């Protein structure tokens, strides 16, 4: 692969990202220190690391939910100064091209399952009518089609995470950022969910960054890495 084509294939790239928090007893706690990360089209990358090492922080920086101290982020061709304050245009890019999955599923309790999935579509300004069949298909793929009129509080944890994955995928995003998606689930359900997530993102040709504590889940991705002492080390 030449340098040129390789660059074209990159969906998400960050250079020398640093972030520190000032808290009471440690005025300058450096969570991330000159982190570089590259994610290629249709590839998956897992990040492991001790609790509190900054994995969630890294995902937040990449999604531009908060500014970094320094560094540069490339969303495809788009170059963003990581230290700048996130802008509204970035939000609309995020709506179209980034899917998120969290440990606690964050479904909207007032909406039913289908409406929750379609929330991504609404937020990105796409047509509901056009995307509704796809939403149903994804729910079917996740095995929760029968619950599509149900409200989230009546679903099990595993079912909720399936809905959240469908929601992350429905817009055909370029990247999915998954922060410990199986953290709240038992081993067996977690494995099922993980399989669904990996299969679906592979099928949809969506790139995936997976933060997990589970080494066996981590091994299932194309690349694996460990975040330690503020540095991301590829294995």
């Amino acid at each position, binding site marked *: 692969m030449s340098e040129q084509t390789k660059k074209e294939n990159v969906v998400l790239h960050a250079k020398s990202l640093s972030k520190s928090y000032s808290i009471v007893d440690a005025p300058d706690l450096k969570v991330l220190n000159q982190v570089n990360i590259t994610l290629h089209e249709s590839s998956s990358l897992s990040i492991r690391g001790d609790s509190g090492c900054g994995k969630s922080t890294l995902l937040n920086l990449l999604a531009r939910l*908060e500014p970094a101290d320094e560094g540069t982020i490339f969303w495809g061709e788009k170059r963003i100064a990581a230290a700048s304050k996130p802008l509204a245009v970035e939000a609309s890019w995020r709506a179209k091209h980034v899917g998120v999955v969290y440990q606690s599923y964050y479904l909207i309790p*007032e*909406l*039913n399952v289908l*409406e929750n999935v379609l929330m991504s579509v609404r937020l990105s300004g796409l047509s509901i009518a056009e995307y509704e069949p796809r939403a149903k298909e994804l729910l079917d793929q996740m095995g929760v089609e029968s619950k599509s009129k149900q409200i989230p509080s009546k679903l099990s944890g595993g079912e909720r995470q399936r809905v959240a994955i469908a929601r992350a995928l429905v817009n055909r995003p370029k990247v999915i950022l998954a922060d410990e998606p199986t953290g709240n689930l038992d081993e067996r359900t977690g494995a099922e969910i993980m399989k669904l997530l990996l299969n679906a993102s592979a099928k949809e040709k969506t790139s995936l960054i997976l933060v997990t504590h589970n080494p066996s889940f981590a091994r299932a991705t194309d690349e694996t890495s460990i975040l330690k002492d503020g540095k991301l080390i590829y294995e």
Partner: protein
Amino acid sequence: MKSAWPLFLAWKQLFPSQKKVSFFSLLAIVGVALGVNVMIVVVAFMQGFQQKFRSDIIDAQGHARAVPLKKQVDWKKDTKKISLQPEVEKVSPYIQGHLLLQNRDYHAVPFSMGIDPSQSDGVLPLNQFLQKGFIPIQGYESRDVTPVPTTDLLDDDVVFITQQVANRLGVRSATALLFDDQNDSSEKGRVLVEQLDPYVESDEWKIEFIDEDKYNIRNQQGSIDINCTFNQPLEDLGWGYPKFKLVEGNKPFSKGDQFKFQIFRSSTIEIYSPSMIEKAKSDEMSPPREVRVGGIFQVPWQGFHTDALIGTDRFMEDMRGEENACDGFFIKFQTDYLHDENKLGELCARLEGELEGDWSIIPWFIENAWFFDLLKFEEYLMVLIMIPIGLVAAFAIAIALMTTVLRKIREIGLLIAMGGTRFSVGMIFCMQGFIIGSLGAFIGCGMALTFIRYRDSLMSFIVTRIAGEDGQAGVTQFYDFYSLEVSYPWESEQSMITFLTFIFFAIGVSTLAGLLPAWRASRMNPAEALRSE
């Protein structure tokens, strides 16, 4: 589509899928609706009362009153001139003053007015006022069948007085009682007293049937004893005698059927005038003028003198000892001038010009400005009281929405992570305020319309609860809600403005109430929001 999702979420938070309506939104909407309802109803009623007072005033005083500015005016010529103006419907000159009335040891000094009985009814609906003043006697084994007096009864020795003056002096106009008849069958005909003039004497009258067609009328004094038939009924006996009328029923009368009436004469009162006092100073003692009470009247307009007397113009001239006197005249215009105060004011000014400045013509709304200022003040006061109440409701909504924001911190974080802008996230809460306000206003308007529609039954329910069946009459004398014209918004511009004002007020205030939570939500740091427990 893109801008619509905050509205969608706002709607869903108020009316979640599978739940139809959240408890919070139900309470909030009902609260707004009640507020809007109360505000509209109160203002609509105030306006209804104003409208009512307006028409009462115009009834009592015409549209305008002309007052001479000079001592010597040719009022006959001038009233003629005014009455010929195309806008003028009727002109009615009057003489006014105060007279001292006496009956035995009782006295009253009513405001007294002399009018030309042939002309007055076009300006003052005196017959209507006489009807309002009429209160029948509660008879034992008898019924008050006195006919309501009319202005035809007014002559120079007859006066009409208000209920208050009558009570103070202990006087009545002529009264007829019909004794309850055991044989009386409602299927058979009736005998009515058609007219009782002020000169009838106290007497007992009997009408007795000789056969089904023939009857006898006689009085106890024995001055009348006449046989009549239906074909040849009793002719008018003239002034001083009651006028009876026979009404045939479904069944014919039969021999022995009789109707017995007790007639009471009208009271006489003695009247002294200021001119008599002047005469007395120069040792010319003149006896008091004796007049009869022709009828009791009541002017619905509360600003009118409650102690009042109305007599003929000649009677007042006599009392004043003047001839050809006139203190002014009432003017009634064509009905187009009823509502437009500006037009009326201009017209009055123009008529003053026509009369070369000899007269001042005062429109009713200037003459009674004090009263309308009072009503306006009352209305503003109501609104002033209600606005803080509205704001309290707004605070309640704001607090409730604020709690929602705090409860939904993590969802707000998620929405931003999913690509929502801070502004849109804030809009969710603004929109909730807007929806609550709009639905509340809508329902409140519906309630107000229902209230206006069924106001009579509702009000009389309330009033009878407070004052009892008997007290209702007393309350309605002041607040006559039965004849209240409360108009629907499609009927009058004023009512439309009231409705729209409160609709916009409710929506505006609720939306503003959503603003603070919205601002709070939009300022949230999404990364921190997602971390929050």
